[in-house]
């Protein structure tokens, strides 16, 4: 007859110890970093997936770059429509959907005086490309990952029972006071995108007026898919109040942080 109770908690398998590894590569005119947490982050399948993620971004840059004269996008803008990557059609479709979903606060078609509108999907492509690159990491078993590309962040976990999604702390840059992280959001799965004037000046155009949005501040959207977080962040930068009202009914999984 055993009277002493054997404690159960210490016998339960300890959560796996996640080591961390980071990769940095210069893609899309910025340095893109990928962080992986895994029991053994030197696994060759992880390295292969990271290489595929960077390759995805390089390809997206070759197709959609606005400053590489031979990109598919610029050739399309110059009227060479003979031979473009299939991604262009995907992005056109996404841009149409985004325009509809945001009531036109997001628009990839910019009107030009005395000419036909220019297709410029820059406001969507960065988040979309980063989300697509992160997909290559999302299929790797037993890892948690985060990918940061010029202010857009995607985090998540691969399949497998032993890695419970850890929290990634994403600092939000204070747009008004240089030198401060204004806020921190903790995300286990999903995307964080920020739109604002900041260092590059007014590069988001209000589709209603055709003018750049020039005011201090920034808009961050957190949600399950980085592509749509990016779209909503761009739309929110154009009209924060309206997007704050629209989001709960149209995309309730996405939340807006206005700084």
């Amino acid at each position, binding site marked *: 007859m055993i009277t002493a109770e054997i404690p159960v908690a210490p016998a339960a398998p300890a959560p796996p110890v996640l080591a961390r590894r980071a990769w940095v590569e210069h893609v899309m005119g910025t340095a893109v970093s990928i962080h992986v947490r895994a029991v053994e982050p030197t696994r060759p399948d992880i390295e292969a997936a990271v290489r595929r993620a960077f390759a995805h971004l390089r390809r997206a840059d070759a197709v959609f770059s606005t400053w590489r004269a031979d990109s598919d996008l610029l050739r399309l803008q110059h009227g060479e429509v003979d031979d473009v990557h299939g991604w262009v059609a995907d992005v056109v479709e996404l841009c149409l959907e985004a325009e509809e979903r945001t009531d036109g606060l997001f628009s990839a078609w910019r009107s030009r005086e005395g000419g036909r509108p220019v297709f410029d999907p820059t406001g969507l492509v960065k988040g979309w490309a980063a989300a697509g690159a992160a997909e290559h990491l999302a299929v790797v078993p037993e890892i948690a990952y985060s990918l940061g590309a010029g202010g857009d962040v995607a985090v998540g976990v691969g399949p497998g029972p032993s890695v419970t999604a850890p929290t990634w702390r994403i600092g*939000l840059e204070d747009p008004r006071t*240089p030198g401060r992280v204004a806020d921190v959001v903790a995300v286990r799965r999903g995307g964080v995108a920020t739109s604002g004037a900041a260092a*590059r000046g007014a590069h988001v155009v209000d589709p209603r007026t055709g003018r750049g949005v020039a005011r201090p501040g920034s808009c961050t959207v957190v949600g399950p898919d980085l592509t749509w977080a990016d779209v909503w962040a761009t739309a929110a930068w154009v009209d924060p109040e309206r997007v704050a009202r629209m989001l709960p009914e149209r995309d309730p999984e996405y939340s807006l942080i206005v700084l």
Partner: protein
Amino acid sequence: MRRITTWLLSTVSALVLLFSYHTSTGQGATTVALGDANGAGAAAPDTASGDGTSSGSSDDSSSSSGSSSSGSSDSSSATPSPSTTKKSSSSAAKTYTGDAIQTRYGPVQVEITVKDGKITKSAVTQVPWSDHRDQEINGYAVPILNDEAVQAQDAGIDMVSGATFTSDGYIQSLQSAIDQANL
């Protein structure tokens, strides 16, 4: 019996040599090992005991295991959370210079000063001053990152989201400096 012991010992040391060679070449030039925000060691991924969550174990990875990769074990002390700063006996301040990172606007480079395992100062040593527009951008971007480096150290931030498209180069150079310092 002694023969078996020496045989075992030589096998283990051979294994250690083998594995350390593998990891030191396996890591590419752009790969940096970082400390986990939870305080788990960054390297020696095979050792299950080297973590603060498993009770009673010290944070030394067991050296008897032949599979502990010695090539990267230096960075197992790379724990950015202040509670786990260990064994960096109060030393004099040292300076580490990060890699020069190529960005669209030119190379950027960050230098950090480390004392007692914490970043006390970070400075940008290389900035692309190629034209006036760059000066405007960097005049804004540099102070953000100088402070951010020090702040991120306290707050344990994994990634930064912001509208500054060009700032990443500084962050990455900073990261490589942190890696060199084995924080």
